[in-house]
């Protein structure tokens, strides 16, 4: 029996999952407040990574402005909470809907753009949103100082305030989300998405509505990121434009690619690597980003399929490489 096939056995899988769940439940009671906080932010990045994975990973759309949707969620929450006193628990779906609607409206005219053009448009979008937040239109966004969220998140009488509360909320949500996303991957929609990613023209000729598939992925991904914005605002309590820069989008993009396109466990592993390692390597703070950049280049050269590749994506890359070898055509 090979080592890999042990994990294929259902019993081992269930036991591993059970152990993981038990570990997650015990974690905040065993770990310090500080590490629980780290785990909460790690979790928020996992949600963001999973949301971007729908767009970049599943459909192969180059979105390097994902922080814009995250920002819209966070600011919708902060503005509606401070101005109108709407409870944060309601604002979670409202912020998600706002970000999703924004993505739907904004991507309709640009969704047909290919590759690099879409990349530039999303970067531009990210910058427009950030500049708008700094310029404080109508006194809504508080300029570069940002906004302070006074209200606490209350869900069915449970006040989420300590790091431990947030830990359970965020990771509980991730558990549900992962199940939903796994189901989605193997559904008609998920397969259509992967088809579009691998060969758009073939997908269209087989009857997949490419435009619809892309718009759906963008809208869903943005809505999920907007929801993460509510969690972030509730946790941080102060939000400012600095948290939603282009580099934030780059980090999210890197999480998806480094983890392995379309791979849910890959996103979690990569988010962990990018969020937790810097905490461990605090002494090397100055070299952290340098190291990160070098790692990005080396990963792409030596392991382009990502840390934990999804089977479909690994196959596609292998196919690309084989084609490049057999026929050195095109460019």
């Amino acid at each position, binding site marked *: 029996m090979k080592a890999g096939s042990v994990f294929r056995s259902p019993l081992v899988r269930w036991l591993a999952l059970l152990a993981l769940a038990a570990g997650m439940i015990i974690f905040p009671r065993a770990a310090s407040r500080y590490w629980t906080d780290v785990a909460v932010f790690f979790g928020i990045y996992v949600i963001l990574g999973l949301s971007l994975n729908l767009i970049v990973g599943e459909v192969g759309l180059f979105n390097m402005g994902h922080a814009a949707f995250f920002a819209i969620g966070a600011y919708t929450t902060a503005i509606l909470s401070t101005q109108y006193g709407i409870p944060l628990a309601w604002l979670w779906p409202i912020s998600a809907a706002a970000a999703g609607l924004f993505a739907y409206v904004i991507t309709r005219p640009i969704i047909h753009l290919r*590759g690099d053009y879409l*990349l530039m*448009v999303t970067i531009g979008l990210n910058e427009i949103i950030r500049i708008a937040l700094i310029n404080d239109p109508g006194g809504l966004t508080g300029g570069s100082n940002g906004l302070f969220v006074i209200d606490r998140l209350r869900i069915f009488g449970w006040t989420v305030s300590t790091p431990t509360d947030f830990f359970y909320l965020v990771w509980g949500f991730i558990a549900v989300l992962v199940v939903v996303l796994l189901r989605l991957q193997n559904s008609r929609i998920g397969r259509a998405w992967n088809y579009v990613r691998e060969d758009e023209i073939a997908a269209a000729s087989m009857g997949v509505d490419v435009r619809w598939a892309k718009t759906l992925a963008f809208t869903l991904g943005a809505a999920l990121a907007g929801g993460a914005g509510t969690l972030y605002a509730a946790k941080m309590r102060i939000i400012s434009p600095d948290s939603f820069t282009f580099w934030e989008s780059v980090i999210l993009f890197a999480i998806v690619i480094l983890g392995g396109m379309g791979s849910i466990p890959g996103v979690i592993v990569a988010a962990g690597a990018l969020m937790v390692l810097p905490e461990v390597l605090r002494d090397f703070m100055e070299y952290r980003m*340098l190291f990160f950049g070098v790692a*990005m280049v080396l990963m792409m050269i030596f392991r*382009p399929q990502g840390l934990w590749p999804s089977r479909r994506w690994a196959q596609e890359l292998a196919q690309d490489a084989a084609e490049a070898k057999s026929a*050195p055509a*095109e460019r």
Partner: protein
Amino acid sequence: MEIFAEQLMNGLTVGSVYALVALGYTMVYGIMRLINFAHGDLFMLGAYVGFTVLMTFFAQSGLPLWVILLCIAFAAMAAVALAGVAVERAAYRPLRRSHRLTAVVSALGASIVLQNGAMLIWGPRYQAYPAWAVPSTRFEVFGVSMTSMQLLILAIALVLMVALYFFVQRTVLGMAIRATAIDHDTARLMGIDIDQVIRLVFIIGPALGAAAGVMIGLYYRQIHFTMGWAYGLKAFTAAIMGGIGNIPGAMLGGFLLGILEMLGAGYISSAWKDAMVFVLLILLLILRPHGLLGERVAEKV
């Protein structure tokens, strides 16, 4: 009218810098279909190298100013051309045959390395070019006031652009670049060494970028390790405006972007000027995705 003329002059000055940087993007894109995200940071590196050479060798030299400026510009161009070749060798060449996304991520990685490398070498704070190094005579031409620095930037940028245009259109090496941009394999069959051509492009582009970096350093005087990103993004916008892969297009796009930005800053709002640039980019991509001078490219099946 006075504001208009003045903003036009500012726009032309900044625009010539955008145009020089845009040329680097457009040449690399034309040959490799890759957005060289590290290009903006090579521009930043140029500004820093020029600054360091100026402060170490010419601080008390007593040489005439134009000799000093020429020397630091050449030093920056040479050093950054070397860095450009190194980036290509380390981050792009191993990925030439792989998926587009992997090359994009590698380019971002290279950009992060350059930025943080510069931060570690020169520190996280702003550095300032000294005032004595900046030619600051004021002129009045037809009632429009301009500084000698502005005229110098415009003149040098124009000379470099004309030189590049003739190099690409009239020399054998230029022909090799054009042929490679059209079709790698046919070019190779005609005896063109593709690796050499790519290396050449990664010498010319970063050298032009470095010259632009020194100009911006002298013009605004303050330089920072993150500046490459802001200028790079605008220059890339300029390249798209003109039609990516098109050399005259990049020049036109650069000037146009600079002028529109400065007019927008003067007449509408300076706080929103960057946002206006990106709105313009998005509108342009929706209405005319192949740019002003670019040709419509059919998607390959």
